[in-house]
C-alpha cells in the first residue's frame, strides 16, 4: 500500500467519525493555542521590562546608599548599622576616576507644586546637567539645568510634558514661576515626552538642581548616583573603582551598594524568562493530556473497527500496513489540531497586542516549535499503542465479531 493511498484511507477513516475526530482536534488545538498565547504573554512582559532597562543605557553603574548584605547576625551587626549619607561630595569625587565618563547625583521625593491656583502632588528629582545625557532625555522647549557647581541651589526647574499640559494648558510655560514646597522656581525647560524608565515617569517629573532639592526636602543624602562608564568592557573594573573610592571616603566601611545596569537587566531577564518557561510548562500539561486523549480515542477506534481490520487482513493487508494506517490517522488528527491551535494562538497573541500595545506579545519561536513538536510527537507516540493493538488483532477474531 503506497503512501498516498494510506493517507487517503486514513483521512477518510478520520472523517468517517466526525464527532470523535472533531473532539480530538479541539483538544490538541486548545493545548497548542494555550502554549502560544501564554508564552506570548510571558515573553512580552520580559521584553517590555528589558526594553525599559535598555533605554537607560548599557554602561550605567548605579550607586545606592546602604548595603544589602545578607548573612547571619555577627559581632559587626551590632557595631555599625546606620549607613553614612551618600553626599554630593561623594558624587563629585567619582567624576575624577579614569573609567568614569559622566556622573549625576539624584535625590527624589514627593512634593506639591502650585501654578496660579492649581495644586498638584508631583515627584521632584534633584539632579545635575549630566542627567539628560545619561538618561537619554531630550527637551521639547527651553534648556535643561545649567552646568554649574552642584552645591549651588539655583531657583530653576524643568518639567515633564504631561505636567506642562496639566499645569499650563495652552499657555506658555517657559519663564513662568512655579512654587515647589516653600520655594519659587522659574521654568526653564520642558522635557520631550519619553515614557517610563527605571520606575519613574519622566513625563510627570519636576527636575530641579540637586542642591535645590536638598533644600526643599531638608536632607543631605542622595537617593542615587548614576555613573556612565567610559567603556562597556571595563564595566566591572569601573564598578570596583567606585566601590573602593566610596569605601575610602566613608572611613573604610563599604556602606553603599554598587550595581551595574547589566546585572539588573540580567536578573529581570532571568526571572521573567523562568516565568515564561513555567507558564509554557503549565500549558504543555494540557498538551500531554490531549496526547492521552489521542490514545484513548484511537483505542476506541480500533475496538470499533475490529471487523474492518479483520477484513483488511483477509484482503491481504500485512500487520505493518494496518499499523501504518492507524498511525497515519492519529498523525493526521494531531497535525490538524496543531495547525488550528497555532492559528488560534497567533490570533490570540495578536488580540493582546491590539488591546495592550505596550506589551510586545509575540510568542517566542522556541515555544511555538516546542508546542507544535509536542503535539505531533504526542499524536505519534500515543498513536503507536493503538496501532500496534490493531496490527496484532487475529483476523479470525476480528471478523467473528459482528
Amino acid at each position, binding site marked *: *500500500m*503506497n503512501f498516498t*493511498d494510506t493517507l487517503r*484511507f486514513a483521512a*477518510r*477513516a478520520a*472523517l*468517517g467519525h466526525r464527532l470523535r475526530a472533531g473532539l480530538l482536534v479541539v483538544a490538541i488545538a486548545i493545548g497548542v493555542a494555550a502554549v502560544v498565547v501564554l508564552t506570548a504573554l510571558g515573553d512580552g512582559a520580559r521584553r517590555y521590562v528589558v526594553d525599559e532597562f535598555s533605554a537607560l543605557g548599557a554602561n550605567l553603574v548605579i550607586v545606592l546608599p546602604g548595603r544589602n548584605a545578607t548573612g547571619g547576625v555577627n559581632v559587626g551587626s551590632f557595631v555599625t548599622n546606620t549607613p553614612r549619607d551618600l553626599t554630593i561630595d561623594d558624587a563629585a569625587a567619582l567624576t575624577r576616576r579614569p573609567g568614569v565618563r559622566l556622573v549625576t547625583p539624584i535625590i527624589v521625593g514627593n512634593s506639591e507644586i502650585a501654578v496660579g491656583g492649581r495644586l498638584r502632588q508631583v515627584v521632584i528629582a534633584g539632579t545635575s546637567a549630566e542627567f539628560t545625557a545619561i538618561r537619554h532625555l531630550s527637551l521639547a522647549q527651553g534648556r535643561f539645568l545649567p552646568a554649574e557647581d552642584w552645591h549651588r541651589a539655583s531657583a530653576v526647574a524643568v518639567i515633564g510634558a504631561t505636567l506642562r499640559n496639566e499645569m499650563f494648558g495652552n499657555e506658555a510655560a517657559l519663564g513662568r514661576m512655579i512654587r515647589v514646597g516653600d520655594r519659587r522656581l522659574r521654568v526653564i525647560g520642558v522635557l520631550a515626552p519619553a515614557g517610563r524608565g527605571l520606575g519613574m515617569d519622566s513625563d510627570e517629573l519636576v527636575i530641579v538642581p540637586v542642591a535645590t532639592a536638598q533644600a526643599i526636602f531638608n536632607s543631605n543624602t542622595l537617593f542615587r548616583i548614576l555613573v556612565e562608564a567610559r567603556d562597556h568592557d571595563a564595566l566591572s573594573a569601573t564598578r570596583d573603582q567606585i566601590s573602593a573610592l566610596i569605601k575610602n571616603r566613608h572611613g573604610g566601611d563599604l556602606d553603599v551598594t554598587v550595581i551595574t545596569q547589566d546585572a539588573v537587566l540580567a536578573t529581570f531577564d532571568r526571572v521573567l524568562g523562568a516565568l515564561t518557561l513555567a507558564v509554557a510548562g503549565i500549558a504543555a500539561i494540557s498538551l500531554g493530556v490531549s496526547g492521552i486523549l489521542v490514545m484513548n480515542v484511537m483505542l476506541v477506534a480500533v475496538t470499533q473497527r475490529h*471487523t*474492518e481490520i*479483520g*477484513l*483488511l*487482513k*483477509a*484482503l*491481504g*493487508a*500485512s*500487520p*505493518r*500496513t494496518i499499523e501504518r494506517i492507524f498511525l497515519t490517522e492519529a498523525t493526521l488528527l494531531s497535525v490538524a489540531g496543531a495547525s488550528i491551535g497555532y492559528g488560534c494562538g497567533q490570533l490570540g497573541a495578536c488580540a493582546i497586542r491590539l488591546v495592550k500595545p505596550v506589551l510586545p506579545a509575540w510568542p517566542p519561536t522556541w515555544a511555538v516549535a516546542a508546542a507544535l513538536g509536542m503535539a505531533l510527537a504526542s499524536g505519534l507516540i500515543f498513536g503507536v499503542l493503538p496501532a500496534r493493538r490493531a496490527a496484532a488483532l487475529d*483476523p*479470525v477474531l476480528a*471478523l467473528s465479531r*459482528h
Partner: protein
Amino acid sequence: MSLIELDAITRTFTLGAATVNALRNITVAIEAGEYVAIMGASGSGKSTLLNLLGLLDHPDSGHYRLEGRDVTTLSADEQAALRRDRIGFVFQSFHLVPRLTAAENVALPLVLAGVAPELRRQRVAEALGKVGLSERADHRPDELSGGQRQRIAIARATIMRPAVLLADEPTGNLDRHTGAEVTELLEALNTAGATLIIVTHDPALGQRARRRLMMEDGVLSDERG
C-alpha cells in the same frame, strides 16, 4: 500436484477449562477448478476449516500446501501477501467498508497491493461489469440491496484473480431469489475456471456442488457426485 493439500491437520481451541477439537487429523486434496461444498452442523468445525484454508487461522499440527508450497511456516507478511494474491473471500455479512463507495471497496485489494491508480480504475470497471453493477460504482453500501452488496463483495474477492475463492455462507443473509442469483454468479466464476469452496449448512446449496466435504465433530468425510 493438487491446488490444495491438507496433511494431518489438527486444530484445538481452549474454551475455559474445556478443550474443543475443531479439526482432527484432516487429510484432503482439492484440485484446481473444483467446486466444493463444506457442510455440517454449526460447531462441527467447518468455519475453522475455511479460515485455515484462507490462512486466517493456523493449524496446531500438520501441513497445508497451497499450489505445492508449504504455507504453514510462512511469516505473517508472507501470509498476508498470499491472501491478497491467491485467495478471495466472500463473507456471509458481506463486510464492505461502509464509508467507501462500491468501486472503492472493490479496489481495496489493488490498493493494498500497490497497483497504480490508472490500472486500478480499469480493472475495477471490468470487475463491476462482470457482476452487472457498473452503474452502482459510486454508491455506498448502505445505498445498495443485500444482493447487490454481495455481488460487490464477490467482485472484490475476484479482482486479484485468486487461485481459490472461499465463500462462508454467501447466501445466508439473502432471500431465496437473490441468494440464487449470487449462487449462479459464483458458479459462473467456477465454470470460468476459479476453484470454488463454499461453506454452508443449506443442503440445497450443498447439493449443487460437485463434491461435498461433510464435517462432524472435527472429522471430515468426502462425498462426490
